[in-house]
């Protein structure tokens, strides 16, 4: 119980720090959104500019502290105001959220599954053919920048071969519906961005999993299992992998931050209208309310995952509870 309370306390503290940083950073950037909106129209009337600034909450007369506390209050109630194109921020985010959630969620699970399995197998047959090809290859790929992998895949499969669509989340002009045709359309649009994220993140899973496996395989209880004459697959999965996977579970939560960041680049490259793309346009348009809200969403997602991972490892491994 004390452990839970301590973790929760830490969570709240981290969240507050993140919110404060989130408040400061966009305000330190040069330019403001009203100017950004209007600079695209130029020749603008100062009265319109002032009206926009007030509307966007860029009221220079107001005390920063007052603005700060208003901001904290708004974060708690989910009131983020309007974006630069005057859509409620939450509407905009909720429109885009499912796409990113599905894309990032599914690819992370796939990458985790592939990485873990390949890690298990390659450690089990150390020095074998699989072990000498796949882990090094994927590890090299995983050190490449996300956008580079995305561009290569885009060039090969969409531009040169023309097998897969080049952009967007579904065929332009088609109406979303619950039909098989539309579903396959959505899937075909998600393959390339998804593949990019899988290829880039699977490598690190393989390495940690393989190394954990190697260590675990040297444990006495594994030798004991062999001595008992258990079948190989049972030793591999039930004895070794089950224990070796623990550190990876914690890593799973930490990985999310990297995937979310990567999704900005991937979504930009594939013109995929998810949160990442929204974040990109929000930043380039100096859309303060949108930036703040998105940053909050990202921060919350990561913090919650870390919290869950903390609890999960506490349940799985009693030792962490005492430390």
């Amino acid at each position, binding site marked *: 119980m004390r452990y839970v309370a301590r973790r929760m306390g830490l969570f709240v503290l981290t969240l507050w720090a993140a919110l404060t940083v989130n408040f400061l950073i966009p305000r330190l950037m040069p330019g403001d959104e009203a100017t950004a909106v209007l600079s695209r129209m130029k020749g603008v009337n100062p009265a319109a500019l002032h009206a926009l600034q007030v509307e966007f909450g860029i009221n220079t007369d107001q005390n920063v502290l007052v603005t700060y506390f208003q901001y904290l209050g708004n974060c708690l109630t989910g009131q983020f105001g309007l974006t630069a194109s*005057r859509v409620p921020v939450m509407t905009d985010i909720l*429109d885009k959220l499912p796409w990113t959630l599905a894309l990032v969620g599914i690819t992370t699970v796939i990458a985790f599954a592939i990485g873990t399995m390949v890690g298990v197998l390659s450690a089990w047959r150390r020095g074998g053919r699989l072990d000498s090809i796949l882990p090094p290859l994927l590890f090299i790929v995983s050190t490449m920048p996300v956008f580079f992998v995305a561009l290569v895949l885009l060039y090969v499969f969409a531009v040169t071969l023309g097998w897969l669509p080049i952009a967007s989340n579904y065929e332009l002009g088609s109406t979303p519906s619950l039909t098989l045709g539309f579903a396959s359309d959505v899937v075909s649009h998600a393959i390339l961005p998804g593949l990019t994220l899988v290829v880039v993140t699977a490598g690190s899973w393989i390495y940690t999993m393989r190394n954990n496996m190697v260590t675990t395989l040297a444990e006495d209880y594994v030798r004991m299992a062999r001595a008992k004459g258990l079948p190989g697959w049972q030793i591999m999965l039930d004895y070794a992998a089950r224990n070796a996977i623990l550190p990876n579970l914690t890593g799973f939560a930490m990985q999310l931050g990297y995937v979310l960041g990567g999704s900005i680049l991937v979504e930009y490259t594939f013109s995929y209208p998810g949160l990442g793309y929204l974040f990109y346009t929000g930043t380039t348009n100096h859309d303060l309310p949108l930036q703040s809200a998105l940053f909050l969403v990202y921060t919350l997602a990561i913090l919650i995952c870390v919290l869950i991972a903390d609890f999960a490892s506490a349940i799985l491994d009693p030792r962490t509870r005492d430390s």
Partner: protein
Amino acid sequence: MRGSRYLGLLVAASVVAAACGSSTVTPSAPPPTQAPTVAPTTAPVETATPAGTASAVVSPGPSSNGIIGGKLVIDNESGSTWTCQFNPFNPSVSGTAVGFVYEPLEFVNALQTNADGSNKVTPWLATGSTWSPDFKTLTFTIRDGVKWSDGQAFSAADVVYTYNAIKGDPALDLNAIWSADGGPLTNVALQGTNQVVFTFSGPAQTYFYYVADQIPIIPQHIWSKLDQTKLDAEANTAPIGTGAYLMSDCSQNNIKYLRNPNYWQNTAAAPVPQIAEVDYPSFLSNTPANLMLAQGQAQWGAQYIPNIQSFYIDKDPTHRHYWFPATLNVSLFPNLKNSLLSDVAVRKAISLAINRADVSQRGESGYEPPANQTGIVLPTYNAWYDKTIDNTTFDLAMATNTLESAGYKKGSDGIYANSAGKKLSFTIKTISGYTDWDSSLSVITQELKAAGIAVKVQDEDTTVYTPDLQKGNFDLAYGEETGGPLPYYELRQMLLSSNIGQTNYSQYNSPAVDTLFNNYASASAADQVGIIHQIEQVMVTEYPVIPVVEGVDWYQYDTTDFGGWPTPDDPYAQPPVWATPDNMVVLTHLYPLHP
């Protein structure tokens, strides 16, 4: 597509990605453009169409065939997905509302001038307008028989309401027409049943364009029920207008417009509009938008396409065309407060040292034609160009002679310096992400170096660039004005002293030139041409701004299934879809070629 250079570079490196173009490409924010026109029934504003004489039907071209049908797909990179809002006063979304659903009183064509130089004007929701002799009162006669798309009758009261709603919510007054916002308009009132009278504080001929063409009329019976101080934030998800199209369905990826069967120009004999459905997909970047055009899935393009000949035209040369009409200049703005650039000899040398044809070819692939020092965009505004003027555009020897006779000495590094030893070395600020500008500037850099002037290019984000220019925080800047339907608008933005801090980036200040501009608003058409000629003279003797190339509208069209497009021979409207309300004129001209 603009955004961080980092991402921009990645994309540029990616083979597939397209460079993005100059400001005319800007998606969500239609540059201030004007409307084009159509009909033969038009009269120049000053001479005024007698009230009520204009015929009801303004649109269909001579070749229309009465067929109704077909689906037209628009191709214009919007940079974000649709928000499905249609507030015609919200600059982020107005491009999908004005021209389709909402219409203005009259249409001013920036690409067509009458013999006297004035714009061709086509009455639209008004049947005509008359100026008082002192140009302080403008009276519109409002068209009868127009219906809002919800079936209610449109009337002069809606017009009066629209302008007063703008007065009540300054954020709607994007062109600053009302006196409270810095414009000359003081009152808008109903006269009789079908006339609306605009009263101005001074001669206001030049405001005709903003008042008649740039303001979409909204239905009073809907908008008056909203909070009148927050109209700019109204979402307007189900727009009701007088336009040729009805917004039928909107998702993040596509807006579907259907033909308005009760459109006021529609008759049984000559249906208007003729295209049954118009789709407007949202494109986050140039690449997919360009591909869709190349694959023939879209017919009306407003895209910057690198290698347009091989990428687009060659795939079907009989039906695919492009036309890039110019209405603006892309210029070098010298900061006249800079101790070196304040010397006219230096500015003259810069202008003479730039080979504009070369910049156009190598920097802009020849898509943007070379500009000239008078500041008059040719051939669009031929009527305003003073052919007697000495307008030498490129002469390297004369450039160096100019510097030497002004006392500049070439140093061992090949760069000129003044008598105090200060080198002619400048920074040029430009907008990051405008890759065509970057390549133009690298050509300019080489050319100026050959003339003994060193320049260094500095890319800035628009939100930094614009304030820097307005505050005079630069040596030289590469950029453009928003302009208007005639050279007057652009030149005034560049040179009027009261625009210092806004659009007069050079900070040019000449009472004589101010007087010229101020006289323009009350001058006759012939006198207006004379005034512009005098300003051209200022441009070629004082070099307050150095035009380099002409900014164009990107426009592609496919004649496989549709006819009636604007062409160089029939420039009845500015052709890109983001040019509002020109798009309404194009939409009412287009027709399907097959049933």
